[in-house]
């Protein structure tokens, strides 16, 4: 049987959801018989593949890079999973929303810097005015709340998707879980 191709993506989040993913421990070996992780912060692959069956996305859409990435991911993905509160609700990254980008940059790159304070204008992606959850930018198929969702929850989501079922998450996780 052909393995399900899976991508995991890290946008504006703390990587805690990826830690939780790894926290599946030996169950990762069991999953490896059914899935191929073809793109991930954990895999040395630079470009998003032409097609993946499942993309699991951690983090909110915060920068111009996140924005381009999520559109690209959506276009090349079967089932898009928003993993964790940042992806589902923008969560902690969105706490910058009441402030102007200009003020945030000044705080980070000018006010608190002693040596050659300057706002970067290359390499570092530009912040968008507001941090947004993924479903406000592109269509999301599965919402997995939690900060982070537990390893058990992520294992359940992946095994259900591999089996061709829509995961029912209501009694398994909640915002802030």
């Amino acid at each position, binding site marked *: 049987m052909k393995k399900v191709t899976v991508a995991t993506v890290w946008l504006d989040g703390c990587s805690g959801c990826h830690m939780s993913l790894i926290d599946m421990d030996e169950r990762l070996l069991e999953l490896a018989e059914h899935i191929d992780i073809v793109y991930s912060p954990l895999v040395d692959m630079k470009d998003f593949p032409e097609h993946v069956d499942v993309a699991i996305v951690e983090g909110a859409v915060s920068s111009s890079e996140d924005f381009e990435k999520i559109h690209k991911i959506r276009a090349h993905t079967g089932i898009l999973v*928003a993993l964790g*509160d940042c992806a*589902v*609700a*923008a*969560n*902690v990254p*969105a*706490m910058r*929303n*009441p402030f102007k980008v200009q003020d945030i940059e000044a705080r980070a790159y000018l006010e608190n810097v002693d040596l050659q304070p300057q706002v970067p204008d290359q390499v570092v992606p530009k912040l968008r005015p*507001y941090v*947004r*959850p993924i*479903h*406000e930018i592109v269509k*999301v198929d599965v*919402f997995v*709340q939690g*900060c982070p969702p537990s390893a058990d929850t992520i294992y359940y989501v992946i095994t259900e998707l591999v089996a061709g079922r829509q995961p029912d*998450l*209501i*009694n398994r996780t*909640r*915002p*802030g879980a």
Partner: protein
Amino acid sequence: MAVRSRIKTLKIDGRDVSAHEDETILQIAEENGIFIPTLCRIEGLSLIGACRLCLIEVKGWNRLVPACHTHAEEGMEVFTDTERLRNYRRMIIELLFSEGNHVCAVCVSNGNCELQYLAQRLGMDHVRFPNMQPVRKVDMTHERFVLDRNRCVLCARCIRVCDEIEGAHTWDMRGRGIDARVITDLDIPWGDSETCTSCGKCVNVCPVGAIVEKGRAVGEMTKRKDFLVYLSKMREAKK
């Protein structure tokens, strides 16, 4: 012993139940183990019907009514869990999330919050409405307590407990619609209030992390609500 009112028989979700005519549908449902979600209601305080989570359908009535304010009538047929109600209830919870800044992950009430509990219980897997990211003031001027309006759901429990039980009436509501917010005295800093007795009743009835004790970290704020039932029962007994 006081003379009780007359008995009515009615149906809730197809089940035959009987009740006194002065009982509300909410009370009758709870006596019969039927779940109706509530947020502004708390036992021991007056009912204001503000949150609209307890809306029910009654056969032959063309509008939805709050179970906390609807009394039993002979032969009435009540429905508490229809597709339409489930939709509205989920929508109410989502709108509360979208109009405030509820970040469960960094909230002192994470895991002990009625809004969070209802979100899960009523099946909210995400908020369909864009967050309004309001700028709301936090009041840290009180010696022991914090008011974080970002997490307030305007249930008015603090206002009622302060007025009806403590008798201080420090809390009030100012503004209308989206501008509504709770205030202390005539909208002065809580720490400057001359009426506040620092009894902490508002802290304990607040369903979310809006009124909390200082010095609590994420998930550390647990609240005690049992005192309220005890106090109001003792007062009833005195009368």
